[in-house]
């Protein structure tokens, strides 16, 4: 049974629909990411769960109870804001203690829980620092401790790592995931960083212009993107224009001079998507010419000009000789490595 459920939630600002028909059910202990480009409505959705915005339509339920009827101060959710929104006039310990104070937790227990929470995020010994005297990463940890110490039913994170530099971000990702695994809090993370979403989440909700494009595990969304948007947004991809040829039997999928048995249920013009690392050089297949060849340490990146338009190919640097710039090659891939969608407007 779903722990947190969003049922056809929509939000309008005036005439502008910012979130539309958003349905999602989150299991207890799950780690979900909202992933999408800037302005697609991720924060708006999160704020509706938090209660800072009221949905225009739809219902939000937590353990079957209507969440929208509960005042935000009474929802008991833990929230980490993009700007952290720490209380600058309070020390780290006072910041973390604030939520417990509001819950009238006795002083001794409060001190113990604050200490444990700060230790959990690796800030033991920083109790008496003020936020302005802490680094971005440390402030981020205080914000996380402040949200977790109240034992929230759901943890909401709005781009918590986007203000950190790349290295620290990676460290915090690992730490965040470990903490979440240990205490098992149901978590929703908003991000526009696909790597972050993939490395942290159990499931990803890919959003575009206020609508859900796909909900799936990181692997599903990467390997079986449900739409052109998803395949473009999650990593690099090659889209080739192809057709289903019904004049032969069995029917064939044709993209330039590459052909394979057609998948069932499709006809006419289609788009064939293949990830660059799944394409190899063979004797048959799409004919192409290598424009540039870039060495990137553990792999080679080829930019090719194929019969079906530009293509990118990534090959592991496994010591085998690779074709050179200007070489004519044939691009080939296994049928299970592609995803085929009906092509509209062709």
């Amino acid at each position: 049974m779903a722990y947190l459920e969003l049922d056809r939630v929509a939000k309008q600002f005036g005439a502008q629909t910012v979130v539309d028909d958003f349905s999602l059910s989150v299991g207890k202990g799950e780690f979900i990411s909202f992933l999408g480009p800037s302005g697609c409505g991720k924060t708006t959705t999160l704020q509706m769960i938090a209660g800072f915005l009221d949905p225009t339509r739809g219902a939000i339920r937590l353990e079957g109870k209507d969440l929208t009827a509960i005042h935000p101060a009474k929802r008991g959710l833990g929230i980490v804001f993009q700007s952290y929104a720490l209380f600058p006039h309070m020390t780290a310990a006072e910041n973390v203690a604030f939520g417990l104070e509001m819950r009238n937790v006795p002083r001794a227990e409060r001190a113990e829980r604050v200490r444990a929470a700060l230790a959990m995020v690796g800030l033991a010994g920083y109790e008496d620092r003020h936020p302005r005297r802490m680094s971005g990463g440390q402030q981020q940890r205080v914000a996380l401790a402040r949200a977790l110490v109240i034992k929230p039913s759901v943890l909401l994170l709005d781009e918590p790592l986007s203000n950190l530099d790349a290295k620290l971000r990676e460290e915090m990702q690992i730490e965040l995931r470990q903490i979440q695994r240990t205490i098992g809090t149901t978590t929703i993370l908003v991000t526009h960083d696909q790597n972050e979403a993939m490395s942290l989440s159990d499931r990803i909700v890919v959003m575009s212009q206020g609508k859900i494009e796909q909900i799936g595990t990181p692997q599903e969304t990467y390997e079986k993107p449900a739409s052109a948007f998803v395949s473009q947004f999650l990593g690099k991809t090659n889209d080739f224009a192809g057709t289903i040829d019904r004049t032969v039997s069995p029917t064939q999928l044709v993209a330039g001079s590459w052909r394979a048995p057609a998948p069932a249920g499709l006809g006419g013009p289609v788009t064939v998507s293949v990830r660059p690392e799944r394409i190899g050089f063979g004797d048959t297949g799409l004919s192409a010419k290598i424009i540039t060849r870039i060495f990137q340490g553990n792999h080679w990146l080829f930019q090719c000009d194929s019969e079906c338009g530009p293509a990118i190919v990534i090959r592991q640097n496994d010591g085998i000789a690779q074709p050179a710039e200007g070489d004519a090659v044939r691009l080939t891939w296994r049928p299970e490595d592609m995803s085929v969608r009906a092509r509209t407007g062709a």
Partner: protein
Amino acid sequence: MSAAAEERSARAPWALTAPALMLFVGVLLIPLAMTVMLSFHDWGQYKGIEPVFILKNWHEIATDPYYAEMFWRTFRIAILTTLLTALLGAPEAYILNRMSGRWKSFFLLVILGPLLISVVARTLGWALLFGGNNGLVNKLLISLGAIRSPIPFMFTETGMVIALAHVMMPFMVLSVWAALQRLDPQIENAAMSLGAGPVTIIRRIIMPQIMPGVLSGAIIVFSLSASAFATPAIIGGRRLKVAATLAYDEFLNTLNWPLGAAVATLLLVALVLIVVGSNALIERRYAEVFR
């Protein structure tokens, strides 16, 4: 060659600031020094000003309780005005800050608008509303039977505090407003998500953060009210004098310039000490949080 260029570039800042510096020295420092010097000169009804060095004026100010009362009244009025602007101005700025776009700019204009009107015109407005038996408000209240005799306003400290507070309000609102702009826009949501109610949010989260703004606004309002001239002159006239109107009277009515200069110098020194002192206190109090 390069040494010369270096020398030139080292001189450049001085050369560039020279005009402003000269103006500053010419219109501020020199007259100020002359005023201080003047306060040590002698004066007599028939002999006029005598350029000697005596402590007569300072002795008179220090011993005559009339002056103590005058300065005490000046600072009492300034303190009450400061309290009144803080009590009204801080919530005003907070409410203003929470308004949505169009209303916000409209009311900001309403608050700042009075700055464009002369203090004299505004204070005369108060006098017209409350002054004596003929004041509009008093007339109305009397004819309604709400009061028997007119509410005293002119020539009272209450009237002066109210009129001064009205004049000084924009400075307090602007100062608190500036502090509010530095708040994290999500800070109230953060407190709310941790279970805080609206009163707790204001008391525990907002107030401590805008306090430096309130205090710096208070310093501005206090120093401006303590040295205000136009409003006390109109409301208090010559019956209820404060330090600034007293100095003015000594200069222009009694023609005892040295005594007026001593009053003015004392007011200046007292204000500088109070302002610098409280500023240092505030900076120390909030240093670790707001650096």
